[in-house]
């Protein structure tokens, strides 16, 4: 297998840490059905809610940011969260594509 991308999210995480920010790494660890991003896709979130990278096509990132900020606030090391298909109500967090994903959150420290 080959892949032709390198999103450099971990390198960015390292830069954030050097700037004394707290960093939570969010990684797609499982997918079911037609999910937008493959296993291993990443985003990082700091204590202010700034984020970089992605775990979906913009569908669940806001919820991931909230969860990551909660992890920092509660000083927990890690957490697994799952997202399923969203219902029709607008802005509800979920995946419009009909897929499901599991995202693993972990603090880097």
């Amino acid at each position: 297998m080959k892949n032709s991308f390198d999103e450099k999210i971990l390198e960015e995480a390292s830069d954030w840490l050097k700037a004394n920010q707290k960093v939570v790494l969010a990684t797609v660890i499982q997918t079911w059905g037609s999910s937008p991003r493959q296993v291993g896709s990443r985003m990082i979130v700091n204590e202010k809610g700034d984020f970089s990278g992605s775990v979906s096509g913009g569908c669940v990132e806001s919820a991931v940011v909230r969860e990551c900020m909660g992890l920092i606030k509660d000083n927990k090391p890690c957490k697994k969260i799952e997202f399923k298909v969203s219902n029709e109500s607008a802005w509800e967090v979920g995946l419009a594509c009909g897929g499901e994903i599991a995202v693993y959150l972990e603090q880097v420290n």
Partner: protein
Amino acid sequence: MKINILKEIIEKKNSKAEFAIVTNLKDGNSEIFEKGKKLSKNFENHKDQIESFFKLKKNGVIENTEIFVETYIRPIKVIIVGAVHIAQYLVDFAKSLNFEISIIDPRGYFASEQRFPDIKIINKWPEEAFKEIETNENSALIALTHDPKIDDPALQHALNKKFYYIGALGSKKTHENRCQRLKEAGFSDDQINSIHGPIGIKLGGRSAPEIALSIIAQLVSETYNK
């Protein structure tokens, strides 16, 4: 994840190593796995599955466990022959892609560091330059000089080493002549037809950045075709 693991991952990526990160999802413990490396007690019970993921370059959670494996593969070596204007845009476009670019050009005034900062430039003729780069069927060649003196030896090297992507810049006429020369040099029709010439997908643009974009698009497409 511990900061020292993060640092180690980045170092390994920079050294173009092949490795995997294994994470215990229950407690967040993670470590780096490489071929021949002994796993710590946390993971040694899952050695066979971790090795299998590593071998298949697979990412995912090992079935019926809480162990996540993420594999890192070496970047694809892309050799550009011709430190020309298009090459500058290729380097730009490739920044967020998993390509390790080297540029070969015997003409010193083209192959300057000032034109290509942070890129490996080999200011030699291709026959000599290829002695400095290890290449195989996972390598790609982009020949941009359309000068037979420079391009042809590089194309011959790429064909002999079975590069998965070989593209050569030049008009249809230029490419016909090139094919004829390769035929005379003893290459088969199948080998010659594997060369993408004229290079790039049909985008319509004729400027240097547009041609570079069409080449990168073809290279990515061929990367996943294999």
